[in-house]
């Protein structure tokens, strides 16, 4: 089945699994990135995601193709756009491969690459009503994670 790379609807992991299922494969690894209630000691109501859609879709397809070349895995990636409430998934990945090691590796590769290079941005909506974009260059790891995955 076809799963859109970007969606304003909730991520349905079953759809991603169905998209990569292969009777020749012995393992499917999945990952769901969800909105945490709190990060950096600040409480959130939601995270809002926006994308440069054409290039984000191209880049997500490229990551899936790279994972296939490197691990022999079939990978499906979906990212949600718009407001994602605390506890809901912002990104879903399913990776199927002949064996579990390749499935896990491909799934890990896909989320790591997505976070580094796919043009999608999050804006935190804090519980106190303020907002903040996460779109600045970081030369070191932040002391605390950002509110997404």
């Amino acid at each position, binding site marked *: 089945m076809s799963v859109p790379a970007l969606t304003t609807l909730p991520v349905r992991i079953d759809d991603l699994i169905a998209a990569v299922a292969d009777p020749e494969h012995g393992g499917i690894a999945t990952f769901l990135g969800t909105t945490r209630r709190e990060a950096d000691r600040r409480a959130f109501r939601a995270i809002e995601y926006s994308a440069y859609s054409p290039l984000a879709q191209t880049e997500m397809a490229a990551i899936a193709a790279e994972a296939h070349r490197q691990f022999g895995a079939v990978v499906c990636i979906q990212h949600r756009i718009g407001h994602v409430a605390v506890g809901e998934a912002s990104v879903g990945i399913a990776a199927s491969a002949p064996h579990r090691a390749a499935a896990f590796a491909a799934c890990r590769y896909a989320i790591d690459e997505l976070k580094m290079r796919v*043009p999608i*941005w999050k804006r935190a909506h804090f519980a106190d009503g303020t907002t903040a974009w*996460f779109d600045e*260059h970081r030369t070191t790891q932040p002391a605390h994670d950002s509110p997404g995955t």
Partner: protein
Amino acid sequence: MRAYDRIVPDPVTVTVLVFASLRDRLGADECVVRAPHGAALSGVWPLLPEQIRRADAPLGVRYAVNDVWAPAETPLANGDRIAIVVPVSGG
């Protein structure tokens, strides 16, 4: 002086897409910029509306031309749709 020595190439007009906090600063998704002939992607920042360029160009910016990644030294062509891609934070 020969006549053609005085010919100055026309400026180019490009559409610039912005995202995230730049979009908030601009108050719009895009703007139109006229740039000198031969200008590169990296030369667009000083030509942007004042509400954006009042701050330095963000570190880690990447560029795209017509929805394809492009190096910062890529020359602008008339009618290009360029994107200023600030550091990403999906996931």
